[in-house]
């Protein structure tokens, strides 16, 4: 048993006490004396030319300070994109300007046109109705294929709606085609990966503050990565040098990707506070979030699998249209490419893979990473096409997968899609899954359901993801415009307690607890002696924040590296104090000893000596005990696992009820099992949500039909069962110091294909054998239509 507070213990979260008593401090809880309120006036049409904006009546209304339009942002840069993708022909992607406020044209419902700033929010809203806006509506381009075949242009100045046309691995294209010609069997599947809305429960908020005498800007914002916002907004949009710009992301109520990006509203409040010399606050309503937060997924794909006569996978071919929306959000270009095409080997030894992705502009809200980002899309198509192949070939989906798995003795494994898997054991996770889900007993349960008039099905999916994002030199070659290291400063205080400043960010993941567990374990002091500080660029080292399941794998590694520097220095001090050789000093349970002697110094003896250096080796080391480290991983990490879904379909109504969901994951080493399981639970609900409930739908004019929780179905407590999750099949990561792989996205990646495979299994068992696919969400209406339509 690991000791409470150390690595491997399900230590209770220290952050919970403030959240459970109403003492959390979220951005909307921040109110600065003298603050004004901003209300954004957003386009109600998907595409149009702005003829006139008349703000005079509004500016005369009570409490109104100013109404801003793009004219007020003339000297300001556009919202930048953090990744550049190169097309098959060698040209770089098209990158249209994304202004803070619409210039000349509006391009999606929700595009901000003007902002009313007033003393109170109600006054700002009242005045917004008096702003006169004339827009000539233009035809909207909604369908991706139509968009690239001569549909109306979203951005006239770039001359095309095709952002890029990416091929990967382009050199393999011909060989893949050749393999398909030779194949004994080819399975083809056309599918849609449904557009989703992240909907963290806390809507976005931004508060800008400006200090005239010093020229210091402060932005409080609901961000997963305050340093990234400081960099993007400071350098590219507002031209504020870093030392004059502080970005604070306090308690953040969930992100799931949607709070990675730099948004117009952040730049707006920062600039407006400077112009008006008063703090400016903007709080998104949920309705606004539906049309202004970056959305997720939205791929249309044809996936094809070629098999030889022995059912070995020979080649995989994927053609995808990926919706970018009207503008490129911060990391949008890399999601359907480097986070998708590189994952298409999955857990399998398919020797040849070719992916073509066409990224398309449409008159819709921008699309970017949402929990899993690219990897759920890859996993879904792969695990669906394998299930379809198994059915066509009349073989067990379990055995077809197992036969094609990369085997445990094949690591490190070079995939045909650039990435090298360091460790894994897919047979083990599959076996674990079959055991935990009592797969052997399934037929009996199916018979029992049948007797009640219900169709029971079991669906399997295996996934792999590349996370711990990521090696900077690699992502640089792939087009990233930022490094993806992480940082930590470990400050040991004079009396031995420790304050860690991490560049990572917690918005539900529990860093304050788990990071302290790591330090506590390394030094042997009680976890209560360690405080984790995050979220403020003024006191944390430059870090890239939290997404891509990277916090512990990358951020934790930076902290371990800094702590090792601390331990090395502390050993030097201990050696001096105990007049021993540094090489003989051992640190255990917070005590320094000299090997082979009974000499001993406590942790506090050393930390005190560092800050009260009376007897201290000043000639060789500096006083104090504080170290900063930056960690840049040498590879991604590759969590993997097997997911199983058991459900019942009501044949009369098409309603699907999930009866059991089992997840057997390999996350490598685990610091806090309770938190890891919680992350999986949350991911599963989001994946089940994608599979069964959630769907962001626009009509042909670009109006959002699923514009509130009334029509966008969020998973509720009674939509999901208790899950059974396991992470005992661990193959630790070989290249980071903790041997951890990351667990934040797995649940959302592996679950959608398991659910859909289970629905199809149920239908087949019920005799509906001509149903080969149902697009997500597998709503009652769609399932019924597939059976009876």
């Amino acid at each position, binding site marked *: 048993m690991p000791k409470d507070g150390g690595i491997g213990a399900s230590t209770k979260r220290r952050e919970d006490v403030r959240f459970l008593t109403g003492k959390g401090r979220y951005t909307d809880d921040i109110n600065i004396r003298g603050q004004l309120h901003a209300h954004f006036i957003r386009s109600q049409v998907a595409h149009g030319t702005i003829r006139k904006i008349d703000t005079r009546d509004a500016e005369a209304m009570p409490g109104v300070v100013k109404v801003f339009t793009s004219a007020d942002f003339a000297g300001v840069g556009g919202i930048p994109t953090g990744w550049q993708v190169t097309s098959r022909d060698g040209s770089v992607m098209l990158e249209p300007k994304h202004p803070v406020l619409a210039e000349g044209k509006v391009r999606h419902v929700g595009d901000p046109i003007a902002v009313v700033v007033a003393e109170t929010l*109600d006054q700002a*809203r*009242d005045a917004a*109705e008096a702003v006169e806006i004339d827009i000539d509506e233009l035809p909207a381009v909604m369908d991706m294929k139509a968009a690239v075949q001569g549909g109306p242009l979203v951005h006239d100045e770039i001359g095309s709606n095709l952002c890029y046309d990416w091929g990967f691995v382009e050199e393999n294209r011909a060989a893949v085609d050749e393999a398909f010609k030779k194949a004994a069997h080819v399975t083809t599947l056309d599918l849609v990966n449904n557009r989703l809305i992240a909907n963290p429960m806390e809507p976005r908020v931004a508060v800008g503050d400006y200090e005239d005498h010093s020229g210091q800007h402060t932005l409080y914002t609901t961000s997963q990565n305050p340093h990234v916002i400081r960099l993007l907004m400071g350098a590219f949009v507002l031209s504020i040098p870093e030392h004059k710009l502080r970005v604070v992301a306090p308690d953040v109520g969930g992100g799931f990707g949607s709070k990675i990006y730099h948004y117009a509203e952040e730049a707006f409040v920062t600039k407006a506070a400077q112009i008006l010399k008063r703090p400016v606050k903007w709080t998104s309503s949920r*309705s606004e979030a539906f049309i202004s937060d970056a959305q997720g997924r939205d791929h249309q794909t044809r996936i094809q699998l070629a098999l030889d006569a022995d059912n070995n996978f020979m080649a995989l071919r994927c053609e995808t249209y990926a919706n970018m929306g009207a503008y490129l959000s911060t990391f949008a270009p890399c999601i359907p490419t480097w986070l998708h095409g590189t994952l298409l080997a999955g857990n399998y030894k398919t020797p040849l893979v070719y992916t073509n992705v066409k990224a398309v502009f449409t008159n819709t809200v921008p699309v970017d990473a949402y929990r899993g980002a690219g990897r759920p899309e890859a996993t879904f198509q792969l695990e669906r096409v394998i299930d379809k192949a198994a059915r066509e070939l009349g073989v067990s989906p379990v055995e077809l997968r197992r036969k094609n798995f990369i085997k445990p003795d094949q690591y490190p494994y070079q995939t045909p899609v650039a990435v090298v898997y360091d460790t894994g054991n897919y047979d083990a996770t599959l076996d674990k899954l079959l055991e935990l889900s009592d797969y052997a007993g399934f037929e009996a349960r199916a018979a029992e359901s049948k007797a009640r008039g219900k169709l029971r099905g079991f669906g399997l999916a295996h996934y792999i993801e590349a996370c711990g994002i990521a090696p900077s030199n690699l992502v640089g070659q792939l087009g990233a415009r930022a490094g993806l290291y992480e940082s930590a400063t470990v400050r040991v205080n004079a009396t031995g307690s420790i304050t860690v400043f991490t560049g990572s960010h917690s918005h539900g993941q529990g860093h304050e607890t788990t990071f302290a567990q790591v330090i506590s374990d390394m030094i042997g002091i009680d976890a209560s002696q360690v405080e984790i500080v995050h979220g403020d660029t003024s006191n944390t080292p430059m870090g890239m924040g939290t997404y891509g399941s990277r916090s512990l794998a990358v951020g934790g590694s930076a902290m371990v590296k800094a702590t090792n520097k601390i331990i090395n220095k502390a050993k030097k001090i201990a050696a001096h104090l105990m007049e021993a050789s540094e090489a003989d000093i051992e640190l255990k349970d917070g005590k320094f000893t000299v090997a082979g002697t009974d000499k001993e110094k406590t942790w506090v003896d050393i930390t005190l000596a560092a800050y009260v250096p009376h007897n201290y080796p000043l000639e060789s080391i500096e006083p104090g005990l504080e170290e900063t480290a930056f960690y840049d991983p040498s590879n991604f990490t590759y969590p993997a696992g097997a997911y199983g879904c058991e459900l019942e379909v009501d044949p*009369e*109504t*098409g*309603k699907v009820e999930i009866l059991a969901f089992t997840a057997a994951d390999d996350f490598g080493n685990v610091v806090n099992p309770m938190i890891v399981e919680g992350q999986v639970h949350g991911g599963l609900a989001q994946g089940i949500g994608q599979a*069964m*409930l959630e*769907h962001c*739908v626009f009509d042909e004019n670009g109006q959002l*039909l*699923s514009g509130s*929780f*009334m*029509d*966008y*179905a*969020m998973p*509720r407590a009674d939509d999901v069962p208790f899950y059974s999750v396991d992470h005992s099949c661990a193959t630790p990561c070989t290249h980071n110091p903790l041997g951890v792989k990351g667990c934040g996205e797995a649940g959302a990646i592996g679950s959608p294909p398991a659910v859909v495979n289970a629905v199809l299994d149920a239908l087949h068992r019920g005799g509906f054998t001509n149903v080969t696919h149902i697009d997500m969400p597998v*709503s*009652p*209406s769609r399932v*019924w*239509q597939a059976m*009876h*339509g």
Partner: protein
Amino acid sequence: MHNFDFVKPSTIADAAQALSHEGAQALSGGQTLIPTMKQRLAAPATLVSLTAIPEMQGVCLGDGGLHIGAATPHAVVAREAKAHYPALAALAGGIGDPAVRNRGTIGGSLANNDPAACYPSAVLASGATVVTNTRKIAADDYFQGLFSTALHDGEIITSIVFPIPEKAAYVKFDQPASRFALTGVFVAKYAGGVRVAVTGASQDGVFRWKDAEAALSADFSPAAIKGLAMESGTMIHDLHGTQAYRANLVKVLTGRAVAAALA
């Protein structure tokens, strides 16, 4: 939302007086009106709260059946109607969620007549009477299509009188996002015959399925409607279901409601 004056009278007469002014609107539980006002789709100058009027509260047996005060919250109906009219109580207990049920009222629901609301189906299937401050309106005359009713401007529903059936049940199929009725069917068997009211399904709002009523009046069993087909042309088509799907649900849920009523 726009600002307004707030008044909270304690008698029906005072409320009617307050509502006679230009721009005045009734506020009951607010579970529909407040979200509507947030979207700035309603902008009353005065809101007249009906929740402090004792005559409009509570559930009791009386002439003609079960009397329910119009400002009685769903949660109270769920508790207090149980002994007298269990199907109605169950319907009330299935509206929205507990917090909505603690505020939302039967009168508000009927005045609003949302095509996906639950209560209208109970009122229509029970042949209930909607009592207002000026008259009594039979259920068959009260509902007049989506969000429209026989109420005049400023008229206040004060109570609803439900004749108590021999057997009844309501089966609701949730719209997955809003949890309103994607389709809901209320079946009520009286000595004089069976009434079947359907909510959520039709473009014209709540309606009676007369073919099913005839079949069930002759034979009150799920098998009785097997041969019937629900016409899909007037059904709603939206994100959550096609016309054919809703027509199917009407039939399936009617069968299930009959089975539940018999159970």
